[in-house]
């Protein structure tokens, strides 16, 4: 139901992001999607990778703070208003979206990755609708 996201803390200075990517490359970890949240002093790199455990291990060994977090991947269809309708269902239930970014999973459809204040509840709500969730296997 959930997919594992790899989160990495990086200082907002030149070369740090490249270094993270280099560590992942050296350990043969493929990046499927990513989002970078930046503040003036540091950034948070959120990644979906084919092998999250291996990615985390490699980053930690290289001195980075890295962790795995459960997130939801939701498949979308290319239709105006679809995402809004989806979020409406979530928000009506008093769930806050902490962050969200896009994920490309196939040739024809798109997906979004979301982290909500109550992930379990959000997953349960989405299950009752017709939406399809992205599984870990699909991005491995």
């Amino acid at each position: 139901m959930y997919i594992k996201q790899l989160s990495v803390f990086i200082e907002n200075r030149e070369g740090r992001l490249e270094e993270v990517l280099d560590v992942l490359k050296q350990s043969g970890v493929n990046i499927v999607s990513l989002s970078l949240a930046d503040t003036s002093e540091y950034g948070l790199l959120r990644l979906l990778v084919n092998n999250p455990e291996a990615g985390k291990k490699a980053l930690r060994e290289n001195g980075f703070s890295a962790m795995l977090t459960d997130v939801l991947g939701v498949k979308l269809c290319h239709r105006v208003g679809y995402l809004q309708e989806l979020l409406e269902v979530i928000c009506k239930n008093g769930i806050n979206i902490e962050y969200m970014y896009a994920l490309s999973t196939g040739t024809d459809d798109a997906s979004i990755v979301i982290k909500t204040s109550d992930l379990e509840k959000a997953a349960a709500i989405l299950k009752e609708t017709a939406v399809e969730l992205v599984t870990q296997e699909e991005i491995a």
Partner: protein
Amino acid sequence: MIWNETKECMSRDEMRVLQSARLVKTVERVYHNVPFYRKKMQELGLEPGDIKGIEDLQKLPFTTKNDLRDTYPFGLFAAPQSEIVRVHASSGTTGKATVVGYTRKDLDIWSECVARALTMAGVSRNDIIQVAYGYGLFTGGLGAHGGAEKLGAMVVPMSTGNTKKLTTMMKDFGVTAIACTPSYLCHIAETLEEEDAIKDIKLKCAICGAEPWTENMRKQVEQKLHIHAHDIYGLSEVMGPGVACDCEYHKGLHVYEDHFLPEIIDPETLQPVAPGETGELVFTTITKEGIPLLRYRTRDLTSIDYSPCECGRTLARISRFKGRSDDMLIIRGVNVFPSQIEAALLEMGETTPHYMMIVDRVGNLDTLEVQVEVEERFFSDEIKELEKLTKKIATVIQHAIGLAVKVKLVEPKTIERSMGKAVHVIDKRKLV
């Protein structure tokens, strides 16, 4: 002008006689009234009668800031609480304050010493003085205030925090003297410059203390404001501001030796060093009633000169401070120990994260940034949580040291590890 010529210009022989008599009385007082000192003296096999004058000073035990902390709050008081009319407190090494108490006589002597210092700086009853030290538990505000009132000057109790109001009143009142920290004076000078108001003020002198500053800083601010600036020294354990001050010749700070008996020791061997040699400044208070201290180790490094001064005073002079024999920092006039930061960070979890304090001076104000490594246990995938963490660390530290800090999260293992004693401070201020 000299406030108290009898005391400030007495011959060295007379001074020694006076100091000896006062030391004997102080030793008797603490032996009989303070269990801490009685025990320490007994351990050394000393009785009050063994101390016959200042030649016996070195037989006495030392006192440290830790002793004040261990006897918190009133353990070293030598007067009953009914005679204590005021307390002040400064930060201690582990977050616990060190508390000092004053009898009415102590306050009178304090005012006398500050009045001497102000007179040295050229302030008289005809002056209008702004006291721009913080008022409160810190000794700066009320200490300078008492002395200025004793002198008979017109006192404007500004305290700190509202520079705009300060400069406005300085112009409108025709203020002629100011007492504040050196960095605040520089900030005031810049504000006046921005307001193009230097031509509108009547300021002629400044009495600055509570933090170290350079001769260069002094000269710069003197030129900018067309004033003369004096260095006043003090510490709450010994009394507060007014333990020593420099005269118009600026050749060291005259110590009010009839109240505070100075020694310079080697901080390693604890043996006295010769006059002129650098060592740690140690004070024995010889007139205090509330909390007299025997051989209090200030941790300030300086040297002493007993030769008479061109100003006519015979009071010994201590040189500008050359550093500290411990790791205490003075940031915006506040004493800060790295151990306080460490203790505060411990509240964040079972072990202290790696941290580094970066002290700097932006414009003329000290800044403190604390860098903390983001370990796994602090880490979150949400910016919101990391911001919460930053705020929490800042609050915990601010609570511990009483200063606003900027907390910066850094990647693990980026703070340099030292092989020997851990280095937790980078002081970028150029003060030497």
